[in-house]
């Protein structure tokens, strides 16, 4: 094992996220690194292209803070609540300033997959007889070379930086996650640089005891940030629940530009990092998000072979 990649969020973002980068903070409702998004805002990055299947509240906050020039996505909303109001403000009407590049979920997953596998495109059966290829010329029909029909190609998506939250990693960046896995693995392998944020730093032996659970090897990881509650108000299977109240409360805040700015001032610019945020949220709010009971998996036996 090499030297430790453990870094503070401040240092990881300072070293690895640059102005103009394409950044993917992935995680499908689960394991979204809000903490990294907030640090990017605090450090004043700008002209970022933000990729995510579901931009979610984290990209609404980042767009409101002015870090982004473009979003690549497949479903733009606050799930179960409504729209993403800060993003809407800069995409609707004549003064629209945020560029949108739009796919479907499978199209986005396929783009990361092509990026990870060093393919020039990935073929899927989506998009036939829809208007998506009309408004996004990067979605293109291709004939099967075997003469059995047409499929649609999407181009590889290779983020400059992918940021992934997970339950645990070792100091080398070998990362294990469980629950909804989204497309974090694909987005990480497709990226030039990878930051992993974890609830818990563990010994290498913990990883090696359960190799099937490793989604990202330290081989492709540049920094490991240890930040419990770093995904809040998103969630971490087995550790804390989705804070649905936050998602509901964000709707009226984000409808009002002044309230949005005040929220960012109080909860992002006004804080030094995630430890401050967790303290400000308070023990009672956090306790209410713990699972109602543990539900451990059974263990499996890998056996020892000499």
């Amino acid at each position, binding site marked *: 094992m090499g030297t430790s990649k453990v870094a503070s969020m401040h240092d990881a973002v300072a070293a690895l996220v640059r102005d103009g980068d394409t950044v993917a903070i992935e995680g499908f*409702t689960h394991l979204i690194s809000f903490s990294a998004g907030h640090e990017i805002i605090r450090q004043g990055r700008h002209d970022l292209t933000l990729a995510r299947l579901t931009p979610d509240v984290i990209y609404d906050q980042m767009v409101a803070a002015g870090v982004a020039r473009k979003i690549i*996505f497949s479903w733009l909303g606050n799930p179960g609540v409504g729209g993403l109001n800060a993003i809407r403000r800069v995409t609707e009407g004549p003064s629209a300033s945020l560029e949108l590049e739009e796919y*479907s979920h499978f199209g986005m997953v396929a783009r990361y997959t092509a990026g990870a596998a060093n393919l020039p495109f990935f073929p899927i059966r989506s998009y036939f007889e*829809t208007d*998506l290829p009309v408004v996004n010329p990067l979605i293109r029909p291709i004939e099967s070379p075997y003469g059995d029909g047409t499929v649609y190609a999407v181009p590889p998506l290779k983020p400059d930086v992918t940021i992934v939250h997970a339950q645990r990693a070792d100091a080398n960046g070998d990362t294990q996650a469980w629950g*909804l896995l989204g497309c974090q693995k694909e987005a990480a392998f497709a990226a030039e640089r990878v930051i992993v944020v974890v609830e818990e730093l563990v010994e290498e032996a913990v990883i090696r005891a359960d190799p099937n659970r490793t989604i990202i090897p330290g081989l492709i990881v540049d920094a490991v940030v240890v930040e419990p509650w770093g995904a809040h108000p998103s969630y971490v299977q087995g550790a804390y629940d*989705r804070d649905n109240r936050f998602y509901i409360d964000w709707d009226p805040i984000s409808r009002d530009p002044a309230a949005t700015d005040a929220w960012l001032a109080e909860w992002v610019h006004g804080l030094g990092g995630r430890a401050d945020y967790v303290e400000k949220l308070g023990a009672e709010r956090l306790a209410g998000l713990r699972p109602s009971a543990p539900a451990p998996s059974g263990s499996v036996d890998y056996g020892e072979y000499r």
Partner: protein
Amino acid sequence: MTDPAAFTKSEMMIAAAARELAGQRVCFVGVGLPNIAVNLAKRTVAPDLELVYEAGVFGARPARLPLSIGDPTIVSGATAAMSMFELFAFYLQGGLVDVGFLGAAQIDRFGNINTTVIGDYANPSTRLPGSGGACEIAINARQIFVIMRQSKRSFVGKIDFRTSPGNLGGAANAERIRREQGWLGRGPSVVVTDLGIYHFDDDGEMRLDSLHPGATLEAVRDTIGWEPRISPDLAVTPAPTGPELELMRVELDPGGTYIR
């Protein structure tokens, strides 16, 4: 609190949609109204229904109705949790999904769906969420169920953007394309609204087969952007039962997000 004589239009719509799932095996659950309808079906007419969530879950057994369709409760106790690539490539595109259950902002008489924009794409009056998984669900699920409230803004002569293909301009063309391209999906088969239940005629057009109690043909015509086709054997949808209402009000939607 579960007096079957008193129910909302939303409760009728959700109960009717759930009943349509009787006999189905594998259902891909969309966000919003489909989520509560499918979870009601699982607890009533279709206990063996396998719930598929685009977030990467097969055989979910959610203990609560999640606000978002990505929620820890859809993983705990599920048959399989996997990457989204596996879900979309092997389960959906591979043809294992019997019913794709979608909501919509706009639908036309042939079941084509818009969830992308109202108005012009480049300069929309309303920016909607977009496809999510709907585009590929519409193409790859064996059949499509739709649940949505009826209005002149949602049931339109021409949708502003085709996010998810239905029967295109009619069944003949749609079936030729499906056959030539090797699609496994057969397109839309049911639309349930707050006023009634539609199925699709052989030519691919929506046909009103059942009116919900209290709904009228006048109300249907007032909330649809074309002259609706009415079945000669128009039925009345049975009202929600006491147990259906109890499940919706007590277990699935105690906050009243969907059923009010």
